[in-house]
């Protein structure tokens, strides 16, 4: 009982990091990959995530209590840098993307005139504050956020079914699989990336692979639901035109008995909590990894530097289209991080456990 209770924050954290993306960028990212039958790319994403997660967990389970940095640093200076540098860069990119997209959402939704720097400064400060508190605190904060905001999000989600027309599920089968040939499919693959944070969790809390997989099942179900709700309400062609399909769907719900006119405000606040959890943890991970690789660099200045980089970089992106273009350019980095890192973890795990067995 005691042991299970101590694992709850970890599992909730995995849910939280995914929630930040699922209810936010997931629908748009998947909708743009193909014209119809969107469950196909969604299932492929789920399979990719399940496979990479399996590799990662299989590796981590063999060497308890070690994170990415602990596993890769003994490989030597060059090799560890080759593996860790792309990982750090990718963490930075993911946090940049969620931060900038969230700022854009807030701008589209409520404050069209507020300068970008003010929004970004607020977000960066929040993320940096979270990262300074350390991974443990982020996990604990996430428990509170989950208790407060997950019910709100689920309520908002279920209220959307009021307008759903299930005929839009059809046509069900797209035999061309054209999404596999589209670059959008690969650039949208960031939606599977939150599982990488699991690689930073072992020093904080013991992981049980079975538990992690059981946590992922509802997350994957949510992915499919969050993707299909805009489709059911707006129809595929209209849903594909929306930049924030999930937001629009929620705006369309008219609940006269609800005290508040716009459910979307709650949605934005809830999303912000989970986006902050995700981005803060990524920043903290960056600090952790850099500190372990270069022990002379203390964690906090690294986090602060990363935050400043985020801020400057976020300001340099002139608009939404540039953000999408950036997703294209870093596709190779994403594929490396999503596939190569879990594979390397498994390989290191096998070697280390064999070495330990031999000695």
């Amino acid at each position, binding site marked *: 009982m005691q042991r299970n209770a101590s694992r709850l924050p970890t599992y909730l954290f995995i849910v939280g990091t995914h929630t930040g993306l699922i209810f936010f960028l997931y629908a748009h990212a998947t909708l743009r990959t193909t014209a119809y039958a969107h469950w196909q790319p969604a299932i492929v994403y789920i399979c990719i995530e399940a496979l990479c997660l399996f590799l990662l967990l299989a590796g981590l389970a063999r060497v308890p209590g070690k994170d990415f940095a602990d596993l890769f640093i003994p490989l030597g200076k060059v090799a560890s840098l080759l593996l860790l540098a792309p990982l750090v860069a990718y963490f930075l990119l993911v946090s940049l993307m969620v931060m900038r997209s969230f700022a854009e959402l807030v701008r589209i939704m409520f404050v069209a005139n507020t300068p970008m720097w003010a929004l970004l400064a607020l977000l960066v400060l929040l993320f940096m504050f979270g990262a300074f508190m350390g991974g443990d605190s982020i996990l604990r904060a996430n428990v509170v956020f989950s208790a407060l905001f997950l019910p709100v999000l689920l309520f908002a989600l279920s209220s959307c079914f009021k307008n759903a027309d299930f005929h839009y599920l059809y046509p069900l089968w797209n035999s061309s699989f054209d999404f596999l040939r589209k670059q959008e499919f690969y650039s949208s693959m960031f939606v599977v990336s939150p599982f990488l944070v699991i690689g930073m969790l072992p020093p904080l809390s013991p992981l049980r692979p079975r538990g992690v997989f059981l946590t992922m099942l509802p997350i994957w179900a949510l992915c499919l639901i969050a993707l299909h709700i805009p489709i059911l309400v707006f129809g595929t062609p209209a849903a594909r035109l929306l930049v924030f399909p999930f937001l629009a769907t929620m705006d*369309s719900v008219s609940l006269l008995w609800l005290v508040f006119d716009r459910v979307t405000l709650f949605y934005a606040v809830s999303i912000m909590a989970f986006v902050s959890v995700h981005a803060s943890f990524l920043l903290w991970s960056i600090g952790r990894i850099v500190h372990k690789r270069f022990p002379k660099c203390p964690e906090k200045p690294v986090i602060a530097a990363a935050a400043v980089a985020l801020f400057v970089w976020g300001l340099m992106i002139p608009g939404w289209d540039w953000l999408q273009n950036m997703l294209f350019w870093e596709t190779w980095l994403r594929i490396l991080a999503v596939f190569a890192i879990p594979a390397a973890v498994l390989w290191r795990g096998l070697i280390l456990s064999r070495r330990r067995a031999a000695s």
Partner: protein
Amino acid sequence: MIRPRRLPSCIALICALTVLPGCWDIKDINHRVLPIIMGISYSKDHKYKVSLQVPVPTARNIRILVVSAEAATLSKAISHLDMNIESNLDLTHMQLILFDRKVAEEGIQDEIAFAMRTQEIPMKALLAVTNEDMESFLRKTGNSVVQNGSSFMNFFNKNAGWDPQITLSALWQAFETIHSETKDIALPVIRAGTSTMLEFEGSALMSKDRMVGQIPPEQSLLVNIANNQIEDAVLEVTKSSSLLIVRNSTRHRGSIVDGRPVLHTRMQLSAIVKEKHDDKSEDEIASELTEQIRTRYELLYEKLLKAKSDPTGAGQHFRGLLPYEELTAWRERYYPRLILKCDVSTVIVNQGNISSN
């Protein structure tokens, strides 16, 4: 040990205070005006004429202001109005977007896209069409708003004064159906009433973004029955009786026979006898209603197919039966050739408190 660690976070928190209060870019409520109806029509000199009905609260009551501006684009017209009104124009409480009939007939795709894009106009805002002059409509209806602030809302509110004949279509539904391959909407056609605030003239049939015809209220009732939109009782008068339809469930099933779409529609109505003239049995009364609804529904469909407008969403039932490439040609190739097989059944629930005249 913890103390020095707290310093940066304290600074961060204090910095956040400068942005958090939100006293910035926000105009106070007393410096805003909140229009509730926007009318869009064409004008002679410029493309658009945008008219707004704005309630302005005065010391005791509200005053209704009707303002109009003409410009080449909608946003230009709105910003022109904003300039001339002493307060800031806030569209977030818009209830109704009213199209002049000519605008609706030309197509409303751009107008809907504008409204969706701003995020300021709520997607729940309802749409309607009018044949009247926009400004005089807004002025006339404004008078009843002064007497009863919520009279306008009640006309369309399902929990208040809405009637089952009135088709309701929100902004998001227009956006949905303009882009959908297999579905359309019907917009209510309204005019300012002589004794009441609004009068319902019928429904505008839309084909994608264009208005292609109009149906009278008794046919738009059938559209709502076919969409299972009846949440209220509705009175039907047949040759020998008056019946109150209290419940309805309609199911559609599509099938393709020899390359032609066939739609099977089953309507199940439950009715209560309100009045009857001849001493007819329940069965006779029921079959009268059944026959009446069926003939009228078939007539409606003849009209819909000719106009290529599909407010009952018949095409939705063929999405699973046709490949995607064929679906995009649904409106042109399949819908006009649709065969309707309508099956209505009526159950008389009771005859009220007396069994016979």
